[in-house]
């Protein structure tokens, strides 16, 4: 796991206050988007819980005593949602899936991986996929992996075989 590259904004105190000026807020949210996607990619974070978010270094810079408010986090997540980079786990919108690739990008990446590695027409387990060494999806959150495979299933490029014990679940690529 490599280090997160913190952008200059992370040390800029007002970055953690939702900006009243619309134009500035747009720039602010864009910078947050870049930072969040960089962060979840480097730390392999799959789910952000709004209620626990102020303990994450992502939303809280202790060095300058600033943290993003729950409203701020909500605004950022809604924006990510619009761009296809996030999705609430359920209607409460407390827990959110974060995708540094959108689901359709992920689906392409997984399918290409299956083709290049002779996985087409054979069954492999979720555990195997997630633990493939040195891939971008290595260590990816299981629930997100299932979402990606479900999307491939919808396109008839894969079939999911779900078991109660999620890691035991498997997939067959077509």
């Amino acid at each position: 796991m490599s280090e997160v590259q913190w952008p200059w904004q992370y040390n800029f105190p007002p970055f953690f206050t939702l900006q009243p000026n619309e134009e500035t807020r747009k720039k602010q949210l864009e910078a947050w988007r870049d930072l969040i996607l960089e962060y979840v990619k480097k730390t392999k974070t799959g789910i952000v819980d709004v209620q626990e978010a102020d303990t994450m270094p992502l939303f809280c810079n202790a060095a300058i005593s600033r943290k993003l408010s729950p409203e701020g986090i909500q605004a950022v997540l809604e924006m990510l949602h619009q761009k296809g980079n996030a999705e609430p786990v359920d209607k409460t919108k407390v827990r959110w899936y974060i995708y540094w690739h959108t689901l359709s990008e992920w689906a392409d990446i997984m399918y290409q991986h299956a083709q290049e590695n002779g996985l087409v027409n054979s069954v492999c387990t979720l555990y195997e996929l997630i633990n493939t060494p040195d891939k971008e999806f290595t260590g990816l959150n299981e629930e997100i992996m299932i979402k990606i495979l479900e999307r491939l299933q919808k396109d008839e490029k894969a079939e999911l075989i779900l078991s109660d014990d999620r890691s035991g679940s498997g997939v067959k690529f077509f």
Partner: protein
Amino acid sequence: MKRRVGVGAIHKQKLEQEKYKDKGSSIQENQLEQLSQHLNTFRDKLESFASEYKNDIKKNAQFRRHFQEMCASIGVDPLASRKGFWSMLGMGDFYYELSVQIVEVCLATNYKNGGLISLDELRTRLIRSRGKSQQHQEITNEDLLAAAKKLKVFGNGFSIIPIRRGQFLVQSVPGELSLDHSQVLQQVADKNQAYISVSILENELNWTSERAQRALDFMVQEGYAWFDSQSPVEHLYWFPSLFTECMNADKDSS
């Protein structure tokens, strides 16, 4: 003396006045002629000087500055026109090129500073984007100021705000800054920090809190300043254009 009355006397007075007038204008003409002769000689001398040291003017930043200063002290602007003998200097071209590069840098950094950039940051970025040869590197702040001033012809979309001795901000978005607004920027720079608050303005400038608040709200509204509600003491207003990490940041790493 016998008092002279009647039509004849009035006529005579009138005639005398006219004669005085004639004499006056002929003296004036004389002086003007002399002056323009002086000017012509001077122009010739300046021309031959300029052409003789053409290369030095182009290449040597210090020499260029002295030459500019000399011209300024006698009220000649070598950049005022591309026509005439100045064009052969290529001096105009030098500054026109700089002006274009200044606009480029301002546009490229607008996304993070909202259209305000310090002259120092502008210079660093501009030099980085120019070629590597020595001639391209020797750009002084004076050169930039001279070039930036030329951009005023495009209206109020471009201006230079002095903030401290020898320090300037270049504003590249339309909208005139009032004296109050410039003073806010000066205060920020004076503190050598990137933020300011209502109470700082009250103390330093003897402003009422309403006046300070109004000026700061304007800075936020125009996108020059960011609002920070998390300082334990009071609300702060931050200027990315004066925030060191922002000044050094490149697009690809942000």
